[in-house]
């Protein structure tokens, strides 16, 4: 299996809402901690090391091009 790069989330606006809502009222430190936990939970769900590495690469590349 390869990393899914085509739209895969139903109701994208609704999901985005939920993501932001989870951070509502949190301090920066609390938000950072929440994000870290979320990454770990999702990473475990995916499990496949090749997919995780592809995702890390993709995320790192977008960060590099933005800065």
């Amino acid at each position, binding site marked *: 299996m390869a990393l899914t790069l085509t739209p895969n989330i139903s109701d994208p606006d609704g999901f985005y809402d939920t993501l932001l809502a989870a951070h509502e009222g949190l301090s920066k430190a609390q938000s950072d901690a929440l994000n870290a936990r979320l990454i*770990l*939970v999702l990473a475990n769900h995916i499990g496949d090391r090749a997919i995780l590495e592809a995702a890390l690469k993709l995320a790192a590349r977008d960060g590099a091009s933005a800065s």
Partner: protein
Amino acid sequence: MVATRYETAFKLYPYETVEAAQSGAVTRHKVVIIGGGPVGLALALDLGLRGTPVLVLDDHDGAGLGSRAICFSKRTLDIATRLGAGQAMVDKGVVWNVGRVFHGAGQIFEFNLLPETGHRNPAFINLQQPYFEKYFVDAIRTAQQNGAPIEIRGRNQVTAVTQGTGPATLQVETPDGPYRLEADWVVACDGARSPTRDMLGLSFDGRVFEDNFLIADVRMKADFPTERWFWFEPPFEGAGQSALLHKQPDDVWRIDFQLGWDIDRQKELDPDRIRARVDAMLSSQTGTVPDYTLEWTSIYTFQCRRMQSFRHGNVFFAGDSAHQVSPFGARGANSGVQDAENLAWKLDLVIRGLAPEALLDSYSEERVWGADENILNSTRATDFLTPKTEISQIFRNAVLDLAAHAPFARPLVNSGRLSVPCVYDGLSLNGPDGFDGPALSRPGAACPDAPVGAGFLLDHLTGGFVVLALNTDVPDIAEVDGIPVTCLQLDPHKDDPSGALANRYLGGAAKAHYLIRPDQHIAARFAHARPDGIRAALRRAICRKG
């Protein structure tokens, strides 16, 4: 004069006048080992049992006071068992199975190691290092009585090592003055500060962890559970970043506090201050402070580094002199004893003229590989314990938070991974991997133990080359180029009804041949081997070309 750098727990090899120091005669020795710590002693015993004469020089007369290493792994116990010292260690040692991990004031999880059955030795024991050294010396004394050519000279300090084209020359200081000797081969087992390394001007590169650990061994009679307790961010006053409580024999408990980098050593070693910390830790779960005495305290900083090569001509480095790791995962003495067993059979064969000198380079190749694996593991543990950046701290704490209720996060919690022997994957001595067998017994791996009859498989692997024939005939071969080969024919179903032997060595296969090295590592395996296949693999395992 020979300076005393530390007190000894046991006097094991008291000073005796050295004849050569009186007469001035320069004697020549086959093998001289500098340093009688765990590694030097294991090596001396292994060589001596093989009949190769060996002289150990140590600048003290016994095992240093204070336990240092406490955790000894199965592979170390298997090696010690082959050398005749293992049973005493296991009898004295403490076996524990339950561990608890705390974060701040609360327990986040507990685990039970539920040991795998079908091995003679437990996964590890806790035992004070002085006992570990004493049992090796006891086994050396027994071997000596049976004729093993081993000599240990206490309070003999090596002050100079000179290499030329011939044998190495050693200058040795004793309480009665200096003397000189010559050695065909020298093995420096003289610890992390290796004077030999300095005398030869060799470098020791790596990374220092900017951290101090306060180690306290306390003796208490209290009815405290035999469990391992580990705290991240302990709640007790001034405990530092992490803390560990671990049981040893004789009602002694090892306590570690991770104090950080900027500390006042003198102040932290003040017994009242240590007692305040220990009181807080001991009472944190039970509410009461049991009666205890402080046995031994010390502050350490740790580093991960190794030499470029563990062989320099006729001088070898083994144990802490060659590589140093942080203690998370108990890889120091454990890996050093594996160095000793890797070198012993190779040196013995070369000295007897049965293997080419090139075999000795494979010692460095294999043990550098092992050292790198240990350094990698202990560096990872250290990075988890002491996050180096803000974001690594955030992830570390996220793992700990999740571990409290989500089992998936528990394997990510790293307070040190238990030392297991490395597999020499892809290295020069390995022969063919001739069938689709279990990964754990692939060429390069240390043989997993398994029940055989009333005993265990490893009991049959006593220090020579062995062909193991499982469910098949033994090849007609008794020696290769003068090196004896023993054949061991087993019927996995009859010899081990539990199925462990078949599981660990056959997997789905019906039969197999294994060629096993003198250090119980697997050289090659075959669906079915003919004598010339065994011969080729054995020649490869001793670096004979063609």
